[in-house]
């Protein structure tokens, strides 16, 4: 798991949902269910994330970002693809 990506996802989630404890995000929990985020919150999270990382995230890929672990795996893959 790329730590930069992990921190970027945690930062984006806590910026949109300030009540969330950054140290307490279960890697495999559905972020929406776990923190009562709705889909516009998720759009905000993805917008923050894509600006922060300078990465264009197409809508078809949003479902990859449902959990912390899947989001990091997705970002790792995207970066590896761009580098490769």
């Amino acid at each position, binding site marked *: 798991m790329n730590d930069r990506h992990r921190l970027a996802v945690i930062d984006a989630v806590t910026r949109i949902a300030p*009540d969330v*404890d950054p140290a*307490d995000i279960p890697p495999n929990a559905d972020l929406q269910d*776990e*923190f*009562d985020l*709705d*889909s*516009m919150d998720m*759009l*905000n999270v993805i*917008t923050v994330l894509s600006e922060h990382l300078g990465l264009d995230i*197409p*809508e*078809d890929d*949003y*479902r990859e970002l449902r959990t912390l672990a899947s989001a990091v795996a997705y970002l790792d893959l995207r970066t590896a693809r761009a580098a490769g």
Partner: protein
Amino acid sequence: VTSAFTVWGRQLTGTAEPGEWELLTTAERARAAAIGDPRARSRYVCTRAMLRQLLAERVGSDACDVMLETTPHGALRVGGHPTIHVSVSHTRDLALVALADGPVGVDVERCDRRVPPGPHRWLTLGERRQLDALDADERQTALIRLWTAKEAVGKALGLGWAAGRQAIDVDGSTATVGDPAELAVALRLVELDAGPEHIAALALTSAGPAATAVRSFDPVGDVASGLR
């Protein structure tokens, strides 16, 4: 074909009553207990209790005996009752439950909700043109309307996020999903009156009225009092 439907709303400003917890299944109570934020926990309990009370009334069973199933795309199904369609949406202060005899999707947002700035990749070209003609305030409201409409359509199709918001084109009370030149599905959008602070939309795969009011649901009374 016209679909019969009703939408109920309740405020989510208070704390869930012990009686509301009792309407939930053991699994739902465990899930609620695991939600760290007490306000989010209350919202979950109140919304579930309302959903269960309404379904119990519809199918004639106890609230906690209603079998609620969630599909892989997050759509709710009522076990043993394939003709009852249900959709749920909530903001931090209002929950809506729609029951219908055909596929249905409901979505609500607060009017003061800030839609993230563009590029709005979730909008179609036609929707962007509609927005270009508006001033800043109108635009913000129109963006929330488009958002709730697309959310409702995704839910009515049972696809949620997987529907792809850019594949849904909203034009007035019609939403078209897919390429019109190939296989497109048209849905009816119903404007819901959920009070001055909220914007809410309902989507049906059949014909329906242009607009309808949300019925007020009273969680402490019996279900009949929610049918005012």
